[in-house]
């Protein structure tokens, strides 16, 4: 392999030839934390690859995880656009974990496309220019007479050469400087509804999720965990479990007692025969009631101030009208359709792991730490993820497999049952929110105070709580309470619960001011033109202000998160028995340039359904230190007949590129609750929505 010298200090692309087999571009995609660093151009280490082989096959290596958000298609589309590639010849490869090669490989924060947009385009454009130079050199013509088109370079005379025949030469020609990116009006691939590259494999059973990994000699394991958070094994009797047909061994690991068997079913059966005594620890009596009570108690005093402007307290005291409310956001679980699982094959000097993860490097580091191996002796293969939603940012299920494989000296697949998955999740924090708002004599808000108390971390509890509205005096303060319940990132994270609280309370203020909730928000968004535009488009497309059938109410909400602005209008009605019917949802999305509108719509619909399950169905509750819900019968999710009609309107935008996996989610809960208020006069301040509370007397 030969490598051209770096073009300049600020470059992030390396050009190589692969033993005469084509062109290889290595380039760098910054992680979220590295954006600032990347802007300086100081830290060049290639972390993504674009390869063009002599058959003209373009292969793009992606170091992000595919969990349904379409990243294995969207990232290649960006490269292919600038490359003028023939889309039919574009292939994608999933990168294995590497500590440094790819920068951060974490998939979260709706960051994959927005973090890579510029560099993927530049890499594609650089390859395109190299191929044009190679053709010009081959033909002995001026390169200005050549252009790239659909996987070929075409000369003004009409002659053409496919990329495959140019790739090896392209690796040797002088590298271009100041590569020009295409004008978006010339885009042929970006903005098109291209089907996802992995779809065929997902309709014939060929797609391999973590659960589908089979390794020679692999055994199956299921682990009995402490039912109480933080509990430890006191003692156990495995004699009956070991006598179960198919069971090979029973071992104690950090997370509990692992039953190892010839099949998953035998491991499940053996596990039922275990007798385990637990030291239930300090949270043995934890309960939802006790958690809410402690949060309410904490919220009586001022917490640490997260954000403020002006003097909210004085402004509130002097306001012509004061409004107060308490909002509750519940614990909710991720419940990916594929329960947690991992395959590990631990040997004396190395370890190989197959895992559906959003955090391959964290899995790798954790395995190395557990085994006392250097990180480069741990190979982590990232499989397809049967849903992620933040749950697979955690490493607990990976560590399970490493520990069991180490204990038995054989490759093993550790499978969590649905009950394990639901009862040992890292839940979205439950938050207790005290809101106070002050209006001036004209009905405009002059003060906003929001106190939040919840478990987990400040980031998970507080993010997304700063009101986007022009309110001269506001303050957000918070308390964090340790409850023993594992808390983690849940699709759209802080904005998922704070969007509900903020966008519901601003609605309360609008009604208190006797102003139209849309016009009220619009007026207060004068300094947030992007969000205001989304609000206006949603209102216009939904026909805001137009008459509705009797009993149907309209609600609106707008939230900017993960670099995108989304507003949604919900039309809903409440039946006599208190059940809620959603008639229509209109979403307006500004996420900057569009990669694939089809994927975008799917993500907005997906975010809405994900939220509605938690809003309309069940919450996670705690009793005797354990999660009460265990399967889809007591923690229900939305079904096809309950799926409302969703219309997604993409706003043409010159704003910077934003995320789309999460931003569709936060506005739907408040828009629905605001619609319920419009329809019934009942204000929902506690999720999930309970029909009993909406029942008409």
């Amino acid at each position, binding site marked *: 392999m030969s490598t051209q010298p770096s073009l300049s200090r600020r470059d992030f692309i390396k050009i190589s030839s692969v033993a005469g087999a084509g062109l290889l571009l290595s380039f760098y995609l910054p992680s979220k934390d590295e954006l600032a660093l990347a802007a300086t151009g100081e830290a060049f280490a290639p972390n993504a690859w674009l390869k063009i082989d002599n058959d003209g096959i373009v292969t793009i290596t992606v170091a992000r995880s595919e*969990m*349904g*958000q*379409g990243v294995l298609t969207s990232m290649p589309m960006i490269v292919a656009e600038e490359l003028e590639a023939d889309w039919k010849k574009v292939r994608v490869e999933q990168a294995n974990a590497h500590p440094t090669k790819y920068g951060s490989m974490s998939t979260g924060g709706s960051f994959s496309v927005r973090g890579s947009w510029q560099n993927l385009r530049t890499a594609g454009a650089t390859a395109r220019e190299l191929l044009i130079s190679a053709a010009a050199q081959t033909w002995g013509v001026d390169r200005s007479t050549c252009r790239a088109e659909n996987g070929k370079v075409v000369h003004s005379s009409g002659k053409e050469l496919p990329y495959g025949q140019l790739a090896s030469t392209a690796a040797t020609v002088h590298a271009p400087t100041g590569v020009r990116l295409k004008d978006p009006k010339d885009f042929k691939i970006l903005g098109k509804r291209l*089907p996802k590259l*992995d*779809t*065929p494999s*997902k*309709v*014939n*059973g060929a*797609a*391999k*999720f973590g*659960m*589908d990994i*089979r390794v020679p000699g692999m055994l*199956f394991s299921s682990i009995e965990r402490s039912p109480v958070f933080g509990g430890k094994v006191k003692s156990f009797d495995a004699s009956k479990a070991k006598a179960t*047909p*198919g069971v090979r061994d029973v071992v104690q690991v950090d997370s509990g007692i692992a039953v190892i068997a010839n*099949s*998953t*079913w*035998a491991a*499940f*059966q053996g596990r039922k025969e275990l007798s385990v005594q637990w030291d239930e620890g300090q949270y043995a009596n934890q309960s939802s009631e006790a958690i809410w009570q402690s949060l309410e108690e904490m919220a009586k005093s001022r917490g640490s101030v997260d954000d403020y402007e002006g003097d909210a307290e004085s402004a509130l005291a002097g306001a012509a009208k004061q409004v107060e409310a308490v909002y509750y956001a519940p614990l909710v679980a991720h*419940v990916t*359709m*594929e*329960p947690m699982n991992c395959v590990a094959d631990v040997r004396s000097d190395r370890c190989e792991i197959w895992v559906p993860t959003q955090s391959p490097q964290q899995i790798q580091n954790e395995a190395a730490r557990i085994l006392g191996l250097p990180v480069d002796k741990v190979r982590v293969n990232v499989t*397809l*993820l*049967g*849903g*992620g*939603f933040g749950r697979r940012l955690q490493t607990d299920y990976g560590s399970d497999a490493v520990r069991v494989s180490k204990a038995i000296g054989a490759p093993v697949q550790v*499978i969590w*049952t*649905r009950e394990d998955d639901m009862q040992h999740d890292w839940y979205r924090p439950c938050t207790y929110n005290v809101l106070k708002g002050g209006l001036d004599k004209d009905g405009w808000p002059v003060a906003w105070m929001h106190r939040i108390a919840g478990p987990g971390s400040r980031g998970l509890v507080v993010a997304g709580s700063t009101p986007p509205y022009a309110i001269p005096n506001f303050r957000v303060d918070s308390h964090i309470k340790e409850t023993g319940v594992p808390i983690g990132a849940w699709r759209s994270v802080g904005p998922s619960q704070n969007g509900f609280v903020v966008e519901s309370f601003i609605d309360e203020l609008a009604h208190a001011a006797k102003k139209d909730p849309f016009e009220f928000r619009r007026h207060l968004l004068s300094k947030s033109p992007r969000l205001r535009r989304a609000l206006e488009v949603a209102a216009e497309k939904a026909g805001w202000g137009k008459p509705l059938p009797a009993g149907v109410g309209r609600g609106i909400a707008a939230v900017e998160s993960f670099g995108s602005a989304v507003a949604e209008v919900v039309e809903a009605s409440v039946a006599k028995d208190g059940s809620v019917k959603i008639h229509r949802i209109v979403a307006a999305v500004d996420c900057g340039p569009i990669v694939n509108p*089809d994927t975008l719509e*799917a993500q907005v*619909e*997906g*975010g*809405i*359904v*994900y939220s509605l*399950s938690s809003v309309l169905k069940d919450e996670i509750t705690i009793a005797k230190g354990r999660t009460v819900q265990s*399967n*889809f*019968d007591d923690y229900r*999710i*939305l*079904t*096809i*007949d309950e*799926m409302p*009609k*969703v219309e997604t309107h993409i706003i043409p935008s010159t704003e910077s590129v934003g995320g789309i996996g999460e931003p569709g989610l936060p506005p739907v809960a408040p828009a629905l609750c605001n619609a319920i208020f419009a329809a019934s006069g009942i204000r929902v301040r506690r999720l999930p929505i309970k029909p009993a509370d909406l029942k008409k007397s």
Partner: protein
Amino acid sequence: MASITLIVNGKKQTVEVAAETPLLWVLRDTLGLTGTKYGCGAAHCGSCTVHVNGEATRSCVTPIEYCEGKTVTTIEGLSADLSHPLQKAWIQEDVPQCGYCQSGQIMSAAALLIQNPHPTDKIIDDAMRSILCRCGTYPRIRRAIHLAAGQKGGK
């Protein structure tokens, strides 16, 4: 242990497993057919749906002894070359997101179309209600079923 003989995707198979072992785990762990998914183990989610003698069946709660002499079709057996009308429709509508539940969705839809070649939205809802998808592919599932049935939807 029991010796059970059944036809899986057109091929005769004899398996030696505990008689109460659910068909799901025989397919996945014994026969290596991993296209059929485990989602809940309690017939709540439908990810494990296969056809037993042509009927949509939750393989996670179907003991293998019940399958003695019966014909089982899994997603791998629907068509090897993506030629089944539902697979074509699923690709055209680009239905899957994460894809994990899709085998169960497609097998349920296939059983529905055998019984009712031109289902209305209501009939689709009734047949597909219990097959859960966490990603929210429901609108596309409905469109794809209508497409495969060769008719436009309407309640």
